């Protein structure tokens, strides 16, 4: 259990983290989501007592990190896989960390085995690949068999195999009842990894919800409907006060109608009452990236030199209220001709 209360960090006049309050529950993976520079790492460092908050507190199982006795047995963290002396062997690195919290030496070999580094345990850590370093970092976090785990961007720069391995590893840790807090700037990754989300932008809390709910709220959903009698269908729907857009035949299929802010049930029943034949009735969802940018667009710290009108940041145009066309393959498809990806929010 991690609880942050009004957490604030200022560097001079820059506010890195601004009055941030959230809670991370045990037994599931909680994603910590935000664009680069949103204050994720700073927050994690404050949780771990490395940085002093300007204001506010953060507690782990009810206590500040500095008050924990043998903290590595309660909290494991991977903030930077490169925090290893390059000329020290992986085993020596784990050995000194284990000794510092009176963790038995045999545990070193157990965690090396768990992350699959046994074969290279005696090799100098400076020669490790990124994936191996990341595994060593995870081994370090697991050393004290802690109930709370923090990972800062653990999949950054990993190959698909490594990403899959880490994702499964986190699920396993959460299933064992641990608190798992993982930061990332990739919503698509978090959608697969995390059950809950803490979303921040420019150091401020944007949302704390379940991942499902966040995606539902963030991405506008629409229903794609198609039938032999398109004009009657159009008239029926507009007659019910629904917004209807024509979608010409294209990559997504033959010409159809797109109806935002409704459900397939509603349209199906409407068509049924008047005896209209439907050839297609499908719920559609905007891409995760679009949703993320829509929510954090105003909160991107560093962005490309966009000189858009007020309210647009780095060329990110907030979707019009009526909603842009939402294709099935919306990733990277420009919305209303404007780039969907802004500045740093890759």
């Amino acid at each position, binding site marked *: 259990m991690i609880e942050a209360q009004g957490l604030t960090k200022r560097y001079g006049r820059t506010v890195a983290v601004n009055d941030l309050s959230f809670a991370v529950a045990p037994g599931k993976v909680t994603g910590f989501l935000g664009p680069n520079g949103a204050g994720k790492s700073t927050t994690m460092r404050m949780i771990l007592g490395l940085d002093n908050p300007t204001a506010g507190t953060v507690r782990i199982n009810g206590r500040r990190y500095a008050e924990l006795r043998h903290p590595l047995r309660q909290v494991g963290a991977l903030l930077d896989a490169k925090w290893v002396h390059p000329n020290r062997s992986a085993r020596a690195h784990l050995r*000194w*960390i284990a000794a510092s919290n*009176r963790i038995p030496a045999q545990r070193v070999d157990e965690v090396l085995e768990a992350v699959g580094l046994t074969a290279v345990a005696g090799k100098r850590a400076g020669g490790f690949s990124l994936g191996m370093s990341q595994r060593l970092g995870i081994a370090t976090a697991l050393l004290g068999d802690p109930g709370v785990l923090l990972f800062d961007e653990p999949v950054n720069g990993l190959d698909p195999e490594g990403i899959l391995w880490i994702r499964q590893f986190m699920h396993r840790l959460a299933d064992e009842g641990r608190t798992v807090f993982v930061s990332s700037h990739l919503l698509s990754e978090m959608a697969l990894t995390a059950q809950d989300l803490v979303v921040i932008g420019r150091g401020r809390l944007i949302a704390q919800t379940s991942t499902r709910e966040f995606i539902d709220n963030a991405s506008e959903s629409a229903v794609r409907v198609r039938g032999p009698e398109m004009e009657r269908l159009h008239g029926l729907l507009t007659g019910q006060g629904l917004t209807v857009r024509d979608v010409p035949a294209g990559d997504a299929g033959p010409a159809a109608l797109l109806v935002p802010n409704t459900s397939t049930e509603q349209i199906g029943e409407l068509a049924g009452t008047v005896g209209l034949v439907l050839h297609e009735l499908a719920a559609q969802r905007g891409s995760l990236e679009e949703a993320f940018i829509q929510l954090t667009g105003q909160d991107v710290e560093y962005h490309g030199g966009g000189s858009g009108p007020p309210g647009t940041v780095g060329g990110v145009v907030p979707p019009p209220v009526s909603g842009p066309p939402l294709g099935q393959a919306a990733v990277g498809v420009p919305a209303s001709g404007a780039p969907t990806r802004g500045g740093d929010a890759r």
Partner: protein
Amino acid sequence: MTLLTVERIKLFSTRSPWWCMILATVLTVGFTSLIAATTSSNDVADLTPDVTQFAYNFGLVVMMVMATLAVTTEYRFGTIRSTFLAVPTRTPALVAKLVVVATLAAVVGELTGVGSWGIARLIQPDAPLGLNTAQEYRSVFGIGLVYLLAAVFAMAIGLIVRQSAGAIVIELIYVLLVENLLPVIPRVGDHIQHWLPFIASNNFVVAGAPHHTDGPQVIDDMPLGPWGSLLYFAAVCFGLFLIGTILARRRDA
């Protein structure tokens, strides 16, 4: 105790401390053996115990580099953060490091002190190298204490500067240049010199020794006696270390 083990593992699981220790001993003892071997039979009467220690500054500087690196490489590679994660109150970890590194420096100091004297005795058996006076004992066995305190000084600078190159440059410029140049200032120079920490530590080693052209420089009229000088040096070193520790506790890691 566990933290001492931690620092011991950290120090000896990399190679640079070994190199520094070997280099410090070989440099110092090697130079002394050169001096002893090239002393002509006319001058052999001048080869007193304090003269065999003329090269102790070589080893001292090398051990200071080792002590600095023990701190700054932790900042360089981020392991200081792992250390502070393991010991969030920070001070015990820094004190443990101080104890391990300073002890090691003291051992190397003793090794070079006794080694230099011993090798001179072997090479020039006729030289007056017996240890009789307190001064003679201090100049051979006191080297370890000077190394120990200099290591504290070096770690303190490392904690304050947190960067290898910067810390080492500051130390070398201070020890090799500043303390030698300040006394040149007219009128006040001599007074300043009496209170320079490394001059004081040198006074601990050589106070009361006869004046030679060889051997560590002997300065007359030092305000403190040998042990007073050492205490003064210790106060400066531990004072700096206290500042370094307070900074390390307050700063974001």
